[in-house]
């Protein structure tokens, strides 16, 4: 599908820091290419805000290819937005229509308090893992040859699927 440009209205949660109250702000953004990713669209908004001398919207992101788990937005009330089986950074603007209003919020969870704007603190999840969610084997490398214990292919495949 060939790309085109759309105009959208964004309603985005702004919050100065973890102690501030926060509220939804409205922004209009024109000429967004449908080939852009959602985060590239937010980059475009931020560039506009900076030009106007305002503070850009803070959001977590890193790999922008769906693997690191850093990005975390509620888009139109759904975690990672309207598409299935992806993270926010893999969402593309071709999923939205010209003239649409898009709601963008941080993760809504008491366990993940807001740090600023759309960024939340997920350290509670790491603390759970550190209290026993790990394989407790030493990293000495002095272990048996990797092929000593065959693992049925189906088990290996299932383990991979569970881990991703």
């Amino acid at each position, binding site marked *: 599908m060939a790309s085109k440009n759309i105009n959208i209205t964004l309603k985005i949660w702004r919050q100065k820091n973890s102690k501030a109250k926060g509220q939804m702000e409205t922004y209009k953004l024109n000429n967004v290419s449908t080939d852009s990713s959602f985060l590239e669209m937010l980059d*475009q908004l931020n560039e506009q805000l900076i030009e106007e001398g305002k503070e850009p919207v803070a959001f977590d992101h890193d790999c922008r290819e769906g693997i690191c788990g850093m990005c975390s937005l509620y888009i139109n009330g759904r975690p990672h937005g309207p598409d299935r089986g992806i993270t926010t950074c893999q969402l593309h603007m071709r999923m939205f229509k010209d003239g649409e209003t898009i709601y963008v919020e941080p993760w809504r969870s008491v366990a993940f308090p807001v740090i600023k704007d759309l960024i939340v603190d997920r350290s509670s999840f790491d603390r759970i893992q550190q209290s026993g969610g790990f394989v407790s084997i030493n990293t000495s490398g002095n272990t048996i040859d990797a*092929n000593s214990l065959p693992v049925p292919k189906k088990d290996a495949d299932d383990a991979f699927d569970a881990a991703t």
Partner: protein
Amino acid sequence: MSKLDSKIPAGDISQKWSNHKAHLNLVAPNNRDRIEIIVVGTGLAGGSAAATLAELGYKVKAFCYQDSPRRAHSIAAQGGINAAKNYKGDNDSIYRLFYDTVKGGDYRSREANVHRLAEESANIIDQCVAQGVPFARDYGGYLDNRSFGGVQVSRTFYAKGQTGQQLLLGAYSAMNHQIGLGRIQMYNRHEMLDLVVVDGKARGIIARNLVTGEIERHSAHAVVIASGGYGNVYFLSTNAMGSNVTASWKIHKKGAYFANPCYVQIHPTCIPVHGTNQSKLTLMSESLRNSGRIWVPKNIEDAVAIREGRKKAKDIPEADRDYYLERRYPAFGNLVPRDVASRGAKERCDAGFGIENNDTKEGVFLDFSTEIMKKGREVAYANGNHNPSDAEVEQLGKKWIEDKYGNLFQMYQKITDENPYETPMKIYPAVHYTMGGVWVDYNLMSTIPGCFVAGEANFSDHGANRLGASALMQGLADGYFVLPYTIADYLAADIRTGKIPTDSPEFDQAEKAVKDQINFFINNKGNRSVDSFHKELGHIMWNKVGMARNEKGLREAIKEIAELREEFYKNVFVPGTADELNPELEKATRVADFMELGQLMAMDALQRNESCGGHFREEYQTEEGEALRDDENFTFVGAWEYRGEDINQEVMHKEELKYEFIELKARSYK
């Protein structure tokens, strides 16, 4: 004055590492908790080092800029990890892995380091399997292997197209164990902004808490930098958005020489650029080249027709397709090393045969139709169907592809909105990895005593070009099996030192320098965003210090970057304040370092009057367009010494590379 003593041990290549280990000093178990070690970066190299050192009993402080150590960009590595296990019985061995890697590096790496890597590779796989990493297995229950570019054996272990993720989660699991026991203090959302050197030794860092903006002092008996590569100097690369050179660059400014900065790897199979808002480039794993065939149309009118949408790939009959890598390099075909494949794509697109309809018309096909039919027939036969219909073959073949590469195909579809099971992928080279990095000796120590560098951040093992699936191997070898031994040798002298104080003049000065830099950016009355400068730097770098370099372009780049840097300091605008979460401020300090590095990269490329690996000088090529090395004059590592704000003043020292066990040859994959 040069401080380059590589400390390569004497003796036969296969004995160097074991002899060296036998003579390294140790720190007794009961003394280890008197010693503190800082690890900056928690990817494969940093994470495995932190976990191993903590397990051995040292007190470790680890830092990462993300909200959790498991976000490091190692997680995005797709295709696999090499090891000389010879499980496939195709004549692999430690020697062959060693040889392939040195040749793949175009004879510009340290022999001894590479052999050590090959020796430790098998241990890495054993270690990861013991940790529970779900590598792919065959029907016998044994680990599966595939081939990667530049080799003629199958030695790459993989977990679908997400090997980096699984390996990193293994290292992260080991880290969690130690964090839970209090042996690693983990500082998430922290960025190292300077190194503190006391009495000539690395004794700590200055770090910024990215949430509160607080500037913190952290001391240790040794500092390990494992902060990854500097590909983001090009703005568009396959790196994560936050990947940066700052930790490496700051230690460079404090005395750590920076080696071979011009050796950049451009990966041949990435999704082409779609527009000016593009923020990064997405890698399509090299493992796909096991199954995909790369081609462009033979006739230029067909290429134009495809770009303009009048023809599709499947409209081009087989006879009219130019499988140019198979044509030029029969022995390796589509699995030539990355630099060779990238230049091949550039050559065809420069000649007008590109098939992507973007600004630069750069794109070639990566086609799976042959493999789909071949594998479909094999699976049908194995199922007892010796006369399958084309439709059955196609269906079975697509299922086979999905099992092998599923997530990669899904990723491609999400980004481009095209179905790669039905139509070939469009790909083009993109900046991916940096072979250059901080100079280290055989013990992984930089020219600053007590400052070690591991993983992609150092320069040592890949020469002028890295082979696919070797980065994961190097990161884990450094972190699990090299650094823990070599760092003990250094730390043996510190068992009675006691805690390093943070209220010394050196810490005061370093903290002040960091605060001054931050205040400068916050208060600068400019009107251009950091990103706008970063993009402009990226353009200069890609066009003039990219896949094909020449003297004129490099001199222009040096000048243009220096001018851009001046403009940056005059005109950059950073909104917000310093004592809060401020992504623009984070970007500003990183881009400031990229500006200096970019200039050094161009200078390094300019002095290297030859072509080797990822460094291609148009003036030095064979008649067939291959890289032309000058072994007589350039078999050395160019290690640069910082001499102050004017990057033109940097001085290059040479570490001569001696090849005692491998004969230097023309690097041919024909």
